[in-house]
């Protein structure tokens, strides 16, 4: 029994210390990496600050239909999971449309795919017994179900019935009684001041912004400038953090310091417990 407890506590301690060390490394990276001016960002991990602007078309947030450059929403249901009831995510989506960030020196494309996005929630609605969700949520659910039906019909050939019902999203449960649900929307509006830490890379052709105009045209070979600066993009790369936040750099550092302290304390206590059972 003691060996089992030692193993469980030791494993939990290892996981907790891993999270703590990762938060500590991110904090140090934020502190140690100077902020680059956008026009002079070089390939590799970079930190920039600037205001957001849409790349091509402006996005509309899914619930509130506000203009934005990035959105993220979650729909959760309060339901039984094992012995306890808790909030379970039943649907979520993060937009992956690239946007631009601008500072006083230039603009840079950011591809938010797989980014750790730290922004406050825009709105949160709730529904439950005797309380329907607001109209915009009902509209969203209706559209979502319509799109899902079209998709399943196109892929399976089944027009209606069992398959479609599996994927159907509803705020009503058995006998039409409302389920306890919450709907949260996060968004980055245009012209928002953001902090971004990520990998600067040359984007693949599909994501590349319009090419720069050549510096000289039809000019003799010896007088043609040798190289035009290639536009870089900030994006996710495995093994390096990719953070997009509307917080200030100092607040980001503070956040990761708190995270480090919490997880490292938990890890120490768990390891102490593991040692206690090991030597008992």
């Amino acid at each position: 029994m003691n060996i089992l407890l030692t193993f469980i506590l030791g494993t939990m301690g290892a996981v907790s210390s891993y999270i703590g060390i990762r938060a500590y490394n991110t904090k140090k990276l934020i502190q140690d990496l100077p902020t680059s001016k956008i026009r002079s960002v070089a390939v590799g991990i970079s930190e920039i600050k600037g205001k957001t602007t849409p790349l091509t078309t402006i996005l509309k947030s899914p619930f509130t239909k506000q203009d934005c450059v990035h959105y993220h929403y979650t729909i959760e249901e309060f339901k039984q999971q094992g012995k306890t009831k808790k909030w379970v995510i039943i649907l979520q989506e993060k937009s992956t449309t690239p946007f631009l960030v601008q500072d006083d020196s230039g603009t840079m494309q950011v591809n938010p795919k797989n980014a750790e996005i730290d922004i406050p929630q825009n709105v949160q609605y709730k529904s439950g017994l005797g309380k329907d969700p607001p109209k915009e949520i009902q509209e969203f659910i209706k559209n979502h179900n319509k799109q899902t039906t079209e998709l399943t019909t196109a892929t399976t050939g089944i027009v209606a019935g069992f398959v479609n019902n599996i994927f159907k999203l509803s705020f009503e449960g058995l006998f039409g009684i409302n389920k306890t649900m919450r709907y949260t929307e996060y968004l980055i509006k245009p012209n928002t001041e953001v902090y971004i830490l990520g990998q600067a890379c040359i984007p693949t052709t599909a994501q590349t912004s319009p090419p720069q105009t050549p510096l000289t045209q039809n000019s003799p070979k010896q007088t043609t400038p040798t190289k035009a600066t290639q536009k870089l993009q900030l994006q996710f790369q495995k093994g390096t953090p990719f953070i997009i936040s509307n917080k200030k750099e100092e607040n980001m550092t503070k956040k990761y310091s708190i995270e480090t302290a919490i997880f490292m304390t938990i890890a120490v206590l768990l390891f102490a417990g593991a040692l206690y059972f090991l030597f008992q």
Partner: protein
Amino acid sequence: MNTYLTYLIIIISIIVIGYIISIFNRLIQLKNNIKKSSANIDVLLKQRSDEVPNLVEIVKGYMKHEKQTLLDLTKIRTQLTTSQTINKKAQLSGEMSSTLKTIFAVAENYPKLQANENFLSLQKRLSELEDQIADRREFYNDSVTNYNTRITIFPDTLIAKMFKYQEELLFVASDQEKKNVKVQRK
């Protein structure tokens, strides 16, 4: 009681060793930041140097009285491509910036040159490179300052001394670069 003391010693030892390792890794990371930012300046210095022959080729036909300035520019370019230390690079980079400023200022006296599209695009390109070099120099100096601060504060200084980490030099603009360019109108 002894057993609890053993747990305590083990846990404290793990924390202390972990902390020492994290300081060591952080110093290495800071040192790598400096190397990377220095290399990023080199890339731009090379790009600027590569444009010099193009510039000389364009302007030599027009600016016959500025032969010495063009020769100086070519000489600085040659020295810059072979320089190794950050001090030397900073000095030569400053001299090149200053000489280029002089050439562009003097060029205002030559309307035909001012009308040459190749010259104008090269001037724009070199001006962009100058701005980028200035940004990256600032980035490099921030990286060096971070590192120099870190190796002098406790407890990092103990590890830095143990591994003989020394202060790095800043990329300082030369006096010549700071001077305003004076051009005599013809």
